[in-house]
């Protein structure tokens, strides 16, 4: 029996090849792009196009292109006016008069009014819709409208971070008239904001297409069309920027970013931003003894971790705040000193036969190199005589375990705070009534609770600085590194770098 290719077989194969070839030949247009458009490879999608609905830090730059926040942040994270032009939190922290712009229009042409403010921050929340912003504005009782462009926010308790929250998660202005006419479900399908871009096409988990809002009240974006490809896999994002399918991408592995930075036509950055990598600590079990907690901290070589996992770009931290933010203590350093660790443990009565033991929990894949850092920590601790068991947990389980008091002694955790305000760093992490931190000790907890209602800014910041240092010195918190964002882009694409890792199409241009 022989395998023969006869004339008919050959013709059939040629036909098939011709069809395949004609399909493949159309491939070139997949890479086309002009200077009036940009394609961004982004790692996650919005949970919904209703911006008040869910708090997802990585979705904020996407929302910010379609919607506006009452206040904004400059690239160095200072609060600046946006829809609100003037604001002043009263000394008692119970009210905040403000004024809004009169020249803002929604994408459908409706003018923005004080009614939209009241609707977004008060009426919508009270209507019973399950909105995440309801939790950030739970002390807001009313917005009193004084004139078409002025009003007063009224709070049931002092709310010192009200201005910060007007530029933070979920606080985007939505159109009252439009939502009331189409309903919230339809609004989420066809969102209307006041932002620099309009949403023209959206396919969940795949692509967002935005077109410039030519009636935008602020600085008009230079790029007319922004396409955001949702590429969740870091390898695929790396391939997309390398092949030119996207013009800019973020959060690819550090080594890949360094490699691509050397590629012709591309440039790479490793940018530290307002996200902490830290150890959440318990004040009981194997960590009842402060000496063990401090020994654990002194044993960590943070610079080595930064070099090994983030190309040395992640800044080693001594307090739970990032450089340049109000709560940061630039002159305070917690020493890396393994010998001191050993001494602390010996003085506390721990020996090689009777070592101090505890468990470290860590996620695997929640933030870059998380589990690798955890493994490195275990090795560093072993060197000073600490016996540590490593336990892997899912991020979704973190809050569940914490609420049930079931987290182990230490948990490797990443905490994002685009505002940089110390309330949302030390305050949230150490407040015993909030679910973010594992520390429930009353000495620090009571101080934090007082700072939550401290309306005087300077006093509040000074208080947080002091409590952050105290937390570190008593082993209530072990800050490790400032997190980094890797960014790779075409050399000719310019963008504005923000201290909180926002990447906004509205700031981009081609040179």
């Amino acid at each position, binding site marked *: 029996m022989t395998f023969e290719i006869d004339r008919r077989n050959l013709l059939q194969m040629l036909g098939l090849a011709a069809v395949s070839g004609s*399909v493949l030949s159309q491939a070139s247009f997949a890479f086309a792009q002009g200077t009036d458009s940009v394609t961004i490879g982004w790692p996650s999608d919005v949970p919904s196009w209703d911006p008040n609905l869910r*708090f997802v830090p990585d979705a904020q730059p996407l929302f910010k292109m379609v919607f506006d926040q009452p206040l904004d942040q400059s690239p160095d994270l200072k609060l600046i006016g946006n829809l609100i032009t003037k604001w002043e939190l009263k000394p008692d922290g119970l009210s905040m008069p403000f004024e809004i712009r009169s020249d803002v229009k929604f994408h459908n042409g409706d003018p923005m009014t004080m009614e939209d403010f009241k609707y977004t921050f008060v009426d919508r929340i009270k209507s019973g819709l399950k909105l995440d912003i309801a939790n950030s504005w739970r002390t807001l009782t009313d917005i009193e409208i004084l004139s078409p462009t002025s009003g007063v926010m009224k709070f049931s308790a002092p709310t010192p971070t009200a201005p910060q929250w007007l530029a933070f998660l979920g606080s985007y202005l939505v159109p009252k008239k439009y939502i009331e006419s189409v309903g919230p479900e339809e609004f989420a399908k066809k969102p209307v904001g006041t932002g620099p871009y309009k949403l023209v096409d959206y396919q969940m*988990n795949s692509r967002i297409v935005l077109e410039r809002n030519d009636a935008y009240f602020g600085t008009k974006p230079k790029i007319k069309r922004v396409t955001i490809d*949702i590429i969740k896999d870091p390898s*695929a994002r790396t391939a997309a920027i390398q092949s030119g399918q996207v013009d800019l991408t973020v959060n690819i592995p550090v080594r890949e970013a360094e490699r691509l930075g050397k590629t012709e036509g591309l440039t790479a950055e490793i940018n530290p931003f307002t996200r902490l990598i830290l150890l959440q600590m318990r004040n009981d079990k194997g960590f009842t003894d402060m000496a063990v907690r401090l020994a654990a901290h002194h044993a960590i070589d943070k610079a080595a971790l930064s070099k090994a996992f983030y190309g040395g770009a992640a800044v080693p931290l001594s307090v739970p705040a990032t450089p340049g933010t109000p709560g940061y203590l630039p002159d305070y350093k917690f020493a890396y000193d393994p010998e001191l660790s050993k001494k602390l443990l010996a003085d506390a009565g721990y020996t090689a036969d009777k070592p101090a033991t505890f468990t470290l929990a860590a996620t695997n894949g929640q933030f870059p190199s998380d589990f690798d850092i955890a493994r490195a920590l275990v090795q560093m601790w072993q060197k000073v005589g600490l016996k540590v068991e490593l336990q892997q947990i899912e991020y979704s389980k973190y809050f569940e375990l914490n*609420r049930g008091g079931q987290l182990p002694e230490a948990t490797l955790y990443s905490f994002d705070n685009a505002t940089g305000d110390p309330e949302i760093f030390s305050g949230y992490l150490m407040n015993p009534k909030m679910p973010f931190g594992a520390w429930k000790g009353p000495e620090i907890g009571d101080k934090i609770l007082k700072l939550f209602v401290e309306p005087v800014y300077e006093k509040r910041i000074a208080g947080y600085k002091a409590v952050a240092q105290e937390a570190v010195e008593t082993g209530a918190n072990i800050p490790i590194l400032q997190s980094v964002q890797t960014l790779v882009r075409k050399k000719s694409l310019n963008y504005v770098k923000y201290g909180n890792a926002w990447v906004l199409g509205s700031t981009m241009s081609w040179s």
Partner: protein
Amino acid sequence: MRMFATIAKLLVKRVLTAIPILLLVSALLFCILRILPVDPAAMSLPPNATVQEIEAMRTEMGLNLPLYQQYGIWLNKLFHGDIGRSIHFRQNVTSLIGSTLPATIELAVIAMMVATVFGLAGGLFLFYVRGTRAEAVMDFVSILLLSLPEFLWSLFLLLIFGVFFEVLPFTGRLSPGFERPLVTGFLLLDSLITGNIPTFLNALQHMILPCLALGIALSPSLMRVLRSSLLDAYQDDYIQQARLRGLSEKRILIRHGLKNAILPTLSLMGVQFGFLFGGTLLVEIIYSYPGMGNLMVDAIRNADLPIIQGAGLTYCVAVLVISIVVDSLYLILNPKLRVR
């Protein structure tokens, strides 16, 4: 006529069997997900929610009720077409699944076609070269193909055709600038219905790499089963008789050997299609393909139990439908089964 009656009988029987299977799967899914140490009430609120707010949400969601009561409520809603509301997306699960399912079906069907073409062609070739040196080489190749999982194929193909040669796109279902027709949700079908040939071709391009990755990973087992079945079939007398009747080897293979040997391969294809339907998760993530696998990954990451339950049930229904289709094909292709 008899064939249709037999198939109809089988359909009725299988649909009746499917009902208790679905009920059992739904109960298992419900119980397993409730036993998991995640709190849907806490997950549905922002992290700064208070313990009191979480407790209130738990009551509102009925999570404080006994498990059998929770299941009863859920089942009752299910019968009324309400699978629940997503915790993360705050949308109806039915509409989320409805909007992503067509993309996954399209991907799975074309991938299965690729697997079938490669599997049958490879199986026939393996059979042709039996007893020669080429058989050992082909054996080695098929084992190699079999040992690489689909996500490795995905990355490999992406690097070769997407990055190195830059001939194929590998993100999403369409390139920017292409109009996306919305009729049935099946993009290829919709672009044909609306006569939008550029969109059709572009969508087809986007499907090449993910379908190849899935199809290549499935094809070696088809090749090997077909080769074995053909070897078995060629031991039967009717092949020898066909040769004595002077039929060509090609005709014997296609008309007699393959027709009898295809049945085990068809069974395997049915099983594989079921696995394929539920196994597109990683490929969808790598290729940014907006299907149900991608949705499922989001749901798992956010402990979105209503979506996981809904998707689990959808997979179960799909597997049952596939098995009914395969059994019907069996009846059509094998007259002996109709007599029984």
